[in-house]
């Protein structure tokens, strides 16, 4: 059953819609959801329609965490907090680029909110431009490959580590390709007092250029190649890691997506792929994935 009412305007196989469904399933009805500007917001609330069956608010692109702070504070001030969960859900751009200051402020203050980053690794709503979460060498409309470039020149910003460094009691990475696991982590996050953070990897059929039926498969490949490590961090310590038995070569993941296609045809592409493999190898070692 879908918690997000059908009829929204998301692409077929949309990762953001799946992510929202899992979050809603995990948090239940006694919740207030805050959504920054982005695909999820736009596709779910074309006035006068709304796909949300929980109270929901969208203010701007860069302030979801601050709005969540205000919601939570008001509930307390008015004596209406009870068990109501305050959950912000935003894209990678709204979270770790333009929304960075607001989320940092909320986590430093220790506000009792849960923030779920739906990381589809680019600004999808505006037409697939790069963000600070776009992976190394991925092609986007503002990081296209060319004679001088293999695509996005920088690796992903390690946002979960940054949030853990704020002293968050619970930080977890997850993926929409593992619904049960994702829901367990979200449920755990909202049950813990203080600012908790979930970073959900979310393959976007339109932006990453793969068939609409392959969203889940692509997400699994990211985990199986160790390019997306899944772990939980409590009070600063990594407490649980999803092991990857015999990690697959990163090519398996890359060749399944249009955004990496150029690496297989360009001169020097082998070296570019090797650098991506090095990122996966670092993950295996750093997070103890094997």
């Amino acid at each position, binding site marked *: 059953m879908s918690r997000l009412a059908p009829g929204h305007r998301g692409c077929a196989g949309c990762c953001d819609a799946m992510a929202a469904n899992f979050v809603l399933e995990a948090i239940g009805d006694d919740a207030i959801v805050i959504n920054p500007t982005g695909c999820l917001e736009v596709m779910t609330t074309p006035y006068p329609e709304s796909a949300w069956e929980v109270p929901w608010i969208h203010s701007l692109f860069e302030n979801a965490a*601050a709005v969540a702070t*205000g919601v939570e*504070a008001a509930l307390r001030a008015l004596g209406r907090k009870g068990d109501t969960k305050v959950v912000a859900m935003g894209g990678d751009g709204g979270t770790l680029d333009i929304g960075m200051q607001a989320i940092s402020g909320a986590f430093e203050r220790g506000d009792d909110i849960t923030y779920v980053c739906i990381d589809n690794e680019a600004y999808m709503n505006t037409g697939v431009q790069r963000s600070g979460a776009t992976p190394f060498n991925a092609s986007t409309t503002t990081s296209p490959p060319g004679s001088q470039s293999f695509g996005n020149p920088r690796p992903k910003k390690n946002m979960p580590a940054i949030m853990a460094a704020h002293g968050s009691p619970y930080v977890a990475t997850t993926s929409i390709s593992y619904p049960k696991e994702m829901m367990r982590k979200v449920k755990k996050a909202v049950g813990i007092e203080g600012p908790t953070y979930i970073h959900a990897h979310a393959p976007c059929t339109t932006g990453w250029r793969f068939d609409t039926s392959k969203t889940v498969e692509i997400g699994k490949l990211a985990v199986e190649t160790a390019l997306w490590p899944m772990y939980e961090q409590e009070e600063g310590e990594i407490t649980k890691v999803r092991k990857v038995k015999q990690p697959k070569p990163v090519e398996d993941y890359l060749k399944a997506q249009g955004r990496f296609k150029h690496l297989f045809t360009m001169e020097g592409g082998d070296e570019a792929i090797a650098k991506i493999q090095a990122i996966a190898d670092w993950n295996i070692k750093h997070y103890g994935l094997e």
Partner: protein
Amino acid sequence: MTGKMTVVEGSYAVAHAVKICRPNVISAYPITPQTHIVEDLSQFMADGEIPNCEYINVESEFSAISTLVGASAVGARTYSSTTSQGLELMHEVLFNVSGMRLPIVMTVANRAVSAPINIWNDHQDSISQRDTGWMQLYAEDPQEAADMTAQAYRVAEDKDIMLPAMVCMDGFILSHVYEPVILLEQELTDEYLPGFEPEHILDPAKPKTFGAFADPSTYTEFRYLQQKGMDAALEKIENAADDFNKIFGRYYGGLIDTYEAEDAEILLFAMGSVVGTIKDVIDRARTEGVKVGLVKVRAFRPFPVEAIRKVVKDASVIVTLDKNISLGLNEGALCTEVKSCLYNTDINIPVIGFLLGHGGRDIPRRNIRMIIDKAKQVIRSGVTIESEYADLRGELI
């Protein structure tokens, strides 16, 4: 007049008024010359003097006003205060607040904007937020700034209005001055200001969607209805001032106030603390037989078009004094607005504008006197210069 006078700083008078208005969520970021207001509020919080209230120490003005978006949507009475760079940083959110019809009240301790950086008073900061859909009220002295806070909540939270309001008080000149003030009394204020009970709130028991996406087929009507709210505020600002007078025995005008205006040939227009100086100059000029009067504009948004048309009818010349400039037009906002509300009427009175007091430059009486003399010339020989600085230091240019 009820209540007893105490000598307090202007900022304290305002912070105290905020406390008495029973806010539920306060969120602010420090910036000179607003700091004393938020420090006083922080002390009230530390001493447990504001019941059912959360004070959020945010990391920026952008988050200060953003937290209030969430809080107000939940149904909290909300407050912030800022100025200058802080207000400009809020710009994007200000539109959002008014568009979502959230009646947040905010004190602006008016200050010049950078560059060059300058911490002293003028009105460029709030005037630059003119079209954000916030009501803007300008206070003449600390007592009015404090009382206006309660009036602002009354008007903003009215169900026919539901728009945010800025209470503008001149930075340093009013925020840092020590003056005898009657602090708002809790009992009287409770009588004057009902609790905030908005029709639409974020509540899991009755889920609603706030901040939806409006396409070209629906967007215009949202904007139209915001203007309707502003229209309704015209009368309610007057009522709020009258009712305040009934309960507290204090009155400063509604949308506008006048001083020696009935028979005035020369009618000066101004906002904020400079009004006090102008009144002194008028008193002196009147003893010399100069028929000069003043219109103090309390509400800059909504702009009191009808009230102004009525009050200027018999004047021979109108003179606006502006602590702000629209670069590229060489006029202050009051000049432009006053002129525009006389057009398409049978009123045909010359309007001249003076820019002065920018970046905190002192406004001595002799400058106002010089402005009155120039106005006399206009009566004799017509307008030669429409708008000019009244206090330019030629030797620096």
